[in-house]
């Protein structure tokens, strides 16, 4: 009979070393390697010059403000959807939830361009109602607000999924008790539902913030015309004019990004501190509010949002995939499916890219889930002093622009790995590891917040049944955090599926990903082919989600995020 030194918290002995190793490999090692190079090259020229540049601080400020407002937008959008769809008697919940996932899939630049198109002088929509601004009038999206808005659209699903998982864990009687106390729906929301689902809420907001801090695509399109430089666009420009000091500069800028994201996390930790979110009693049923006369309005609002964030960019995408050239007005005479023929029939690269991206994102999503369930469990249950540090380290890689992370991995793996002597550089494995590192935070967040809400007696009952750690992990814990686990898998999958900036530097012959392919096509002027490919990717994802929907009955309750 084994005795353990643990204080009844039931963690197996290997858990701590495991978590440490994971964090070391996925975060400490690449970040450390980057920092080492940065410090080395800082000797060649002072980084102090960079730091004393007022322009830098201006970008820090812009990064902060765009990310902050972006987070707010994401919280409003994603939070609104999550609340309305889980707690109210909205019709067509499943479909709305399903559609709400999809904007994550549409490359941000496509969304940005379609919004620009929609609000600009050539907007068919505005032209139709005679409100199109004259040629050359300033574009309202080229602003902090515009960037924040698109950040919000892009990251709303993060908040949605994370919060939804939290809402599903609410015990019904807590909500009912509040209503009977006389609290109006709004008060119940404010005083009971939101505070109780705060872990999910805060996790969603934090990850959205971190994601905004690291975003490149949107500020590149919307920020630069307005002279707004965020740290990622700044980093990009440093790479463009590569000089002897570049590595030092990059390291400094990355460190700034890391600090910003850690600040975001500290705010999250601060919000959650000293609170107890363990659900008392049996969850498993959600109280549903009636909207009554407001239902129509709410439904209209939801569908309108879906139209704006999904239908419109998608229509733009489809339109440009069918147009012979950019800017040619689409009419029955000009429509052509040449682009689709080109990718489906002629380009061998398409098939390879589909295979690569699919296997990479599936492997990352499910592989990471294993890692994050263990890490999340450790973070919530352990009283270790390292918990804060570990969560911060897990988060930073996601905040760094993909290009920086990719550089870190090149620095790490360009030479064969010491001792084993194998080189993974140029293979698909380096992309996989980089994905693990980059999306660790995305996968971890919802799982951690779900663990926070878990009623401990459920695990205890399993322990007393004789279930060892792995056993109860599989039978009890994972099914109980299933909504969060499902959210985590789907999020990582969606994001990895059209990921660009990490794989852009790490791919080589035979390992190109969809993101890279679309980018290269677009960059070399084959706009319509790129658009066609994007459309196909969206179709593929929808198809996969439909398959998931068909399997939903056999999966634990709540895993499929659009099912109630």
């Amino acid at each position, binding site marked *: 009979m084994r005795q353990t030194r643990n204080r009844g918290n039931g963690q197996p002995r290997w858990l701590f070393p495991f978590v440490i190793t994971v964090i070391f490999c996925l975060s400490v090692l690449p970040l450390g390697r980057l920092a080492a190079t940065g410090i080395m090259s800082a000797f060649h020229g002072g980084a102090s010059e960079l730091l004393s540049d007022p322009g830098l601080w201006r970008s820090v400020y812009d990064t902060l403000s765009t990310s902050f407002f972006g987070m707010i937008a994401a919280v409003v959008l994603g939070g609104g959807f999550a609340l309305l769809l889980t707690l109210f008697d909205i019709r067509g919940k499943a479909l709305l939830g399903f559609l709400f996932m999809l904007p994550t899939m549409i490359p941000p630049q496509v969304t940005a361009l379609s919004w620009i198109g929609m609000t600009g002088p050539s907007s068919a929509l505005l032209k139709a109602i005679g409100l199109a601004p004259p040629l050359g009038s300033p574009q309202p999206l080229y602003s902090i607000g515009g960037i924040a808005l698109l950040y919000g659209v892009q990251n709303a699903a993060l908040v949605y999924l994370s919060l939804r998982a939290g809402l599903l864990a609410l015990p019904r009687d807590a909500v009912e008790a509040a209503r009977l106390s006389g609290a109006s729906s709004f008060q119940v929301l404010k005083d009971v539902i939101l505070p109780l689902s705060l872990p999910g809420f805060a996790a969603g907001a934090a990850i959205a913030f971190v994601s905004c801090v690291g975003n490149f695509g949107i500020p590149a399109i919307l920020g*630069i015309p307005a002279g707004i430089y965020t740290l990622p666009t700044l980093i990009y420009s440093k790479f463009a*004019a590569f000089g002897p000091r570049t590595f030092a500069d990059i390291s400094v800028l990355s460190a700034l990004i890391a600090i910003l994201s850690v600040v975001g996390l500290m705010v999250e930790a601060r919000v959650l501190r000293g609170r107890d979110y363990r659900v008392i009693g049996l969850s498993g049923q959600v109280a549903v509010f009636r909207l009554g006369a407001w239902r129509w309005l709410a439904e209209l609002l939801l569908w309108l949002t879906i139209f704006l964030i999904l239908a419109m960019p998608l229509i733009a995408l489809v339109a440009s995939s069918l147009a012979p050239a950019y*800017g040619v007005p689409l009419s029955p005479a000009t429509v052509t499916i040449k682009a689709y023929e080109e990718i489906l029939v002629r380009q061998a690269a398409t098939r390879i890219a589909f295979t690569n991206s699919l296997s990479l994102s599936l492997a990352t999503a499910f592989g990471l889930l294993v890692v994050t369930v263990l890490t999340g469990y450790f973070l919530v249950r352990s009283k270790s002093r390292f918990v804060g540090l570990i969560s911060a380290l897990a988060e930073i890689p996601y905040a760094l622009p993909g290009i920086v992370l990719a550089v870190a991995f090149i620095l790490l793996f360009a*030479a064969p790995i010491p001792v084993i002597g194998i080189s993974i550089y140029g293979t698909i494995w380096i992309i996989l590891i980089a994905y693990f590192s980059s999306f660790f935070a995305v996968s971890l967040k919802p799982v951690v917040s779900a663990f926070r809400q878990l009623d401990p007696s459920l695990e205890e009952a399993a322990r007393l049944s004789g279930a060892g750690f792995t056993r109860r992990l599989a039978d009890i814990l994972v099914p109980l955090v299933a909504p969060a686990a499902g959210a985590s898998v789907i999020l990582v999958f969606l994001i990895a599926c059209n990921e660009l900036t990490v794989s852009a530097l790490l791919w080589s012959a035979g390992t190109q990903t969809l993101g890279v392919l679309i980018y290269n096509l677009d960059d070399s*002027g084959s706009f319509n082919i790129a658009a066609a490919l994007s459309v196909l990717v969206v179709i593929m994802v929808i198809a996969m989600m439909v398959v998931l929907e068909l399997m939903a009955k056999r999966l634990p309750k709540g895993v499929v995020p659009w099912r109630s």
Partner: protein
Amino acid sequence: ADLVLYTSQPNEDAQATVDGFKAANPGLDVQWVRDGTPQIMAKLNAEIQAGNPAADVLLIADTVTLERMKQAGQLMAYKSPEAANYDKTLYDADGFYHSTKLITTGIIYNTQAAMKPTSWADLAKPEAKGLVTMPSPLASGAALIHAQTLAGVSGLGWDYYKNLKANGAIAAGGNGAILKSVASGEKAYGFVVDYLPIREKAKGAPVEFVFPKEGVSAVTEPAAILSSTKHADNAKKFIDYVLSQKGQEGFLKLGYIPARNGMAVPPGFPARETIKVLPINAPEALKNSEKDVKGFADIFGIKG
């Protein structure tokens, strides 16, 4: 692989170049990686830092970057016999890099635009107020060279850029973004590299390309061998190939102006003699690049 090529050429072009080279040198296994200039440089430099660069040859946008690498000792000198057929300004005297084609930057305009510009100066006129867009040197290598080139032209200079800014011009993104912006009618005029609008126009896009009368700037997409190459012989063969008549005809077919003397121009371009290419001094440009980027940034309110 027998040879690894890093290039910023568009996908299809890179593939065509490699295919041509393989046809000329059967049996060689050539790997290539293509990406935008910032990414390629980031990748390459990270590899160099890690002490194991994978590339043997580079074929990238501008001489300025290669000049910097030459000065850092990262390039290998090779005096290609084909250089004799080229203008002296188009290759490094020591043989560290050789230009392969001319990619000029001119003016694109939407066919619905009221004014048809013919000169750079036109874009500073009131008719173009708020309608001009150009690539940012932070996103496009050609854009900086273009700015440095125009800065050296009397009557234009940095004042020209200041006038443009005052006229509501913006600097954003790369050439692709400019093309989209103008083709979609969001802006009416833009600075852009020649081949994009010419190709798109052929496909029916509502755009027109102009070689302004003051002259155009050009980047020359030079090729170079890395000093760390493990396949020096193959690398030299590659340089020879891209400079050869055959290689140059390949570029021509892809729609570029070949750098080699006595070649034709692609369809849609005016005769070679009528294109006035403004000169640029690579070492000089390199020396000033940081200052110029800053100057440009200051004018356009970039980075603050």
